[in-house]
């Protein structure tokens, strides 16, 4: 068998299981990841196969991440789960200070082959359980940041994250857990290589996670109008494959970033600034950023829906962007 059809959550489980079979240094832990299978069901059943290599921790986020640092320093390859991506702040010192700097400040005496997995995005859980915190992580030297948007990358990035000798933060999107897709066996996604998910000529759209799905849906609608967009999935945000974005923009002359995080200093800001620095002559229209306006994520889904860029928003913005040519 050279490929399987898997759901995103299942693909992550398969990836972790495959690595755990291969390498006894890998363990998985966090709140409710054992018998419960994780609040998102990602590790369901793994404790049966792997026994206490899949273990529950108390509700102690600083411990979860700090422990991963210590384990990684001593030759293990820990996978820590935080239930929500917002909880990077519950483990703030250990994420942004310890994990990010422990290697550097000890001048390379340690590598930190650790993974922190967490669920981001979506609605219904309020402002402390819905954030997509990738921009905070991307501003932090020392941390790798992966944003799988398909079951194949959910698999391949999880494998790559486990094998990486750096701390890799994998943001899994809640609304994608149930998404099905083809997962090639032995697929390892390269960290730092963006993928053109749809080739096009009229404008470049950069999007990931659920926003990528929406952008692809928008592209189909735009196609009917004769608007042909190119869609880029960055796959990882650190390293960030800016070259692929720049190449696309040099061709299309226009760029839109769609993201599920506050607009100010969202990832789109960095993309915009780099385009201005490195692809200045090629842009013939202003950048467009679709993002959450600068408010916290409310609880009610219909409020969240009103804030997060929709397929229609993307269609309208792309029309505007292309019309301005």
């Amino acid at each position, binding site marked *: 068998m050279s490929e399987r059809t898997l759901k995103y959550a299942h693909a992550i489980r398969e990836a972790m299981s495959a690595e755990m079979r291969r390498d006894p240094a890998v363990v998985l832990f966090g*709140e*409710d990841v*054992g*018998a*419960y299978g994780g*609040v998102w069901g990602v590790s369901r059943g793994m404790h049966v196969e792997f026994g206490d290599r899949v273990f*529950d921790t*108390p*509700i*102690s*986020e*600083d411990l979860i991440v700090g422990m991963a640092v210590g384990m990684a320093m001593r030759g293990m390859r820990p996978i820590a789960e935080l239930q929500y991506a*917002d*909880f990077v*702040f*519950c483990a703030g010192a250990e994420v942004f200070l310890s994990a990010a700097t422990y290697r550097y400040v000890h001048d390379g005496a340690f590598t930190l082959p650790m993974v922190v997995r967490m669920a981001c995005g979506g609605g*219904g*859980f*309020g*402002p*402390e*359980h819905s954030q997509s915190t990738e921009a905070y992580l991307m501003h932090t030297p020392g941390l790798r940041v992966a944003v799988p948007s398909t079951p194949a990358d959910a698999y391949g990035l999880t494998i790559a994250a486990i094998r990486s000798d750096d701390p890799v933060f994998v943001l899994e999107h809640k609304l994608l857990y149930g998404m099905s897709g083809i997962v090639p066996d032995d697929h390892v996604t390269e960290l730092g290589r963006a993928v053109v998910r749809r080739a096009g000529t009229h404008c470049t759209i950069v999007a990931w996670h659920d926003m990528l799905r929406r952008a692809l849906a928008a592209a189909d609608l735009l196609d009917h109008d004769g608007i042909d967009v190119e869609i880029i999935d960055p796959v990882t945000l650190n390293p960030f494959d800016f070259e692929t974005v720049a190449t696309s923009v040099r061709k299309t002359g226009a760029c839109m970033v769609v993201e599920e995080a506050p607009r100010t200093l969202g990832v789109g800001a960095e993309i915009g600034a780099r385009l201005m620095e490195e692809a200045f002559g090629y842009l013939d229209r202003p950048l467009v950023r679709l993002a959450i*306006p*600068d*408010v*916290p994520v*409310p*609880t*009610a*889904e*219909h*409020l*969240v*829906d*009103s*804030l997060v860029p929709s397929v229609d928003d993307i269609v309208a913005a792309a029309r505007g962007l292309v019309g301005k040519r």
Partner: protein
Amino acid sequence: MHDGDRVGVYRRASLARRFEARVEQLAKSGEIPATLHMGAGQEVAQVAALAAMRDDDPMLYGHRGSAYWIARGMPLDSILCDIAYRDGGSNRGKGGPMHVVDVGRGVLGETGTLGGNLVIGTGVAYAEKYQRTGRVCIVFFGDGTANRGQFHEACNYAAVAKLPVIFFCENNGFGLSMPSNASSAVADLATRAAGYGMPGVVVDGADADAVHAAVASAAARARAGEGPTLIEAKVVRIGAHFLGDREAYRSTADKDDAKANDPLATLWASLDPETCAAIDAENDLLITAAVEAMRTRPMVAASTALERVYADE
């Protein structure tokens, strides 16, 4: 407690129980979202604790159930509208049932991440003491939450600064799927109090009188300027962590045990059955009326999502 007080506890605890059963029905039917964490098994302790406080004593509640709000007299329809994201609730869809608020009744909300309540509650207590209001803050939280760093920082500081706060831990034996005896090696979390130099008390959460007495004496102590108390009420979680949790991690025996030791049934058994029946009939009318009222309300307008981030909005 006097007999009358005990009846009062029953009235509110039973209202919470029946109300939540109705919420569960409505959620299962899809009429409202399924976001409330059910409080069944913990209402008696929650209501008895609040019965021992003044009505304007500030409280930060836990995420388990509606009894906290009911005990403070918040209208059911307002609570239901918060759960349903409809107009007429207290937070207009921003916070849903996790963030019900009623400052006038001392219902000061809750942090979404566990443990925040304890440090914020310590700040509230500081303000009460500083402003000499004579009020005492009560903070509710679970056994799982007692393992967060904030528990430690708050307990330690409140004790050394002798702040008027009661840390009320509802030990229901689980933090989501994790049994308390797997999350900590200590049997009684109240023993931690000694490490902060404050009194720690274990009470049976099914014993309304015991809970009431423990909180009353902690409140008196706090009001006298003698500082905080850590109270651990042993309670049972009759239902699942939330709707949709199938509790595969929990033995049937444990579930049956919880049901067999239902504190509300214990309280009921200590009271006159006819009084209780009459109360429950009244409660059911209140619930029906709240559901009706909720149904007349529209969903909150999407525009609210952009409002009240900052003070001038």
